[in-house]
């Protein structure tokens, strides 16, 4: 189920402004890759081009190739809606649907795409909630509103919702930055479990989190305001933190800027 991502020559624009330039990297299946870099360097933009969410904003465009196994996601005739069904995303602020219960939230990806069959849905909801480490906490109140949970629980609900549609890849855009340390730990443990089944890419501005959680780390940087973000270095996590090959990476990791 988990697939490999190959990015080559990727650039993304907001109108005429080039936000990221010539990004090339590979993400192996069943690994966790972290994108780190200072604010505004384009790491979220790169993430959003991977599941074609970038083009939801009006006036944007993307150049280059993103290969999912052997399919170019930006090829002619590829349906962006179908791409987003195979590549799931979890956002910085938990965003459960407010009019839906916990059960309905997890089932939303299935129901809104027209999958019928209550018995199937029951099974998938339970499996997803177990997968997100939320089942035991909510199994007695599946019909209660999704908004009634704590921040950390809401984020795990969003993760359950994302994995309920069985994506090949899971993208996470700073999933813990709105959460307290205990919830953060819970989600990091969850990521360690999820990587056995999914390919995961996580954007984080917390370097220690990247060091804890990821197998490979990509460092992005920006030369100055108005300039596009670039990929400076991507390597195995222990090596990039102990012995980076680029000066800019070392400066960022040691806290000289960022």
């Amino acid at each position, binding site marked *: 189920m988990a697939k490999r991502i190959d990015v080559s020559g990727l650039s993304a624009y907001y109108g005429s402004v080039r936000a990221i330039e010539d990004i090339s990297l590979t993400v192996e299946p069943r690994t966790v890759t972290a994108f780190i870099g200072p604010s505004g360097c384009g790491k979220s933009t790169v993430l959003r081009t991977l599941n074609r969410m970038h083009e*939801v904003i009006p006036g944007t465009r993307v150049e280059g190739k993103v290969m999912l196994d052997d399919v170019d996601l930006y090829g002619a005739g590829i349906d962006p809606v179908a791409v987003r069904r195979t590549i799931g995303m979890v956002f910085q602020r938990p965003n459960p*649907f407010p009019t839906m219960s916990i059960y309905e939230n997890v089932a939303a990806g299935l129901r809104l795409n027209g999958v019928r069959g209550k018995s199937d849905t029951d099974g998938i909801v339970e499996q997803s909630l177990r997968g997100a480490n939320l089942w035991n906490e909510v199994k007695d109140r599946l019909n209660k509103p999704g908004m009634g949970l704590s921040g950390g629980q809401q984020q795990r609900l969003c993760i359950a919702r994302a994995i309920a549609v069985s994506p090949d890849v899971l993208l996470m855009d700073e999933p813990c930055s709105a959460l307290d340390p205990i919830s953060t730990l819970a989600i990091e443990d969850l990521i360690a479990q999820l990587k056995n089944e999914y390919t995961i890419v996580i954007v984080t501005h917390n370097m220690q989190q990247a060091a804890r959680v990821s197998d490979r780390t990509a460092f992005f940087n920006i030369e100055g305001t108005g300039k596009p973000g670039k990929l400076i270095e991507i390597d195995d996590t222990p090596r990039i933190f102990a012995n980076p090959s680029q000066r800019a990476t070392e400066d960022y990791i040691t806290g000289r800027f960022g």
Partner: protein
Amino acid sequence: MSLSHPSPIRKVKNSAAMVLMALAFLVALVPLISILWTVISKGLKSLNGDFLSHSMRNISPQQTGGGAYHAILGVLEQVAIAAAITIPLSLLVAIYLVEYGRGRLAQAVTFFVDVMMGLPSIVAALFVLSFWILGLGFHASGFAVSLALLILMMPIAIRSTEEMLRLVSSALREASYALGVSKWRTIVRVVLPTALPGIVTGMMLGIARIMGETAPALLLAGATDSINGNPFNGPQGSLPLFVYNSSQSSLQATIDRGWAAALTLIIIVMLLNLFARLIAWWKAPAAAR
């Protein structure tokens, strides 16, 4: 400059401002209370079951008895038809403006909605008179009134629906897109349900507004004392028109009936508002209750 002594002048200014605000509030309440008092005290004595269930057929103006049933039925039917046409149309326009419209068409639509907001009701009625009745040759009917009412309700409905849709956080739309849900499905299954309480309130406010419009009924409803349940054929009664006609008379019986009708109109509008609040409360995102 001392940190521990608030300047006495500031205290005085504070108190003066609070007194002014309280006074302003009371002054604003005066017309509301005096209207309610006047209408209730003058209308309550004639408001009874007979009044609500009889028309003016075969009752001459100086006789007591009779009622406004034909007028109540008329206004309810006219408003219902106007609302039935306006609600789906305004929903679609608002969805277009918020979710899809980017270019010149959206700007033009917004501009015309703004213009229509300020349209006087007599002008809307005149338009329907010249277009529907004089132009196309139809006769005075409840439906003609509905046409004018929907012109008046449409901009309010569009504007308030638009505001409610914009209030839905874009994070919710993104969550839905990220699940691989198409745009139209996202709008219908996520955005609209989330905005629903506000949309219902807006629609009810629009309905409450047109419920009391007299000009369309004056020009387009024709004149009748009898019950006409068919809004498409023949003159139909209208409650605001009933009130107006009663006010032109110097006969006590007629005047009494006019006050009772005015009270009925206010009660209907109030019930609608309560109903709107009930729906909004029931449908509110559960955590907000």
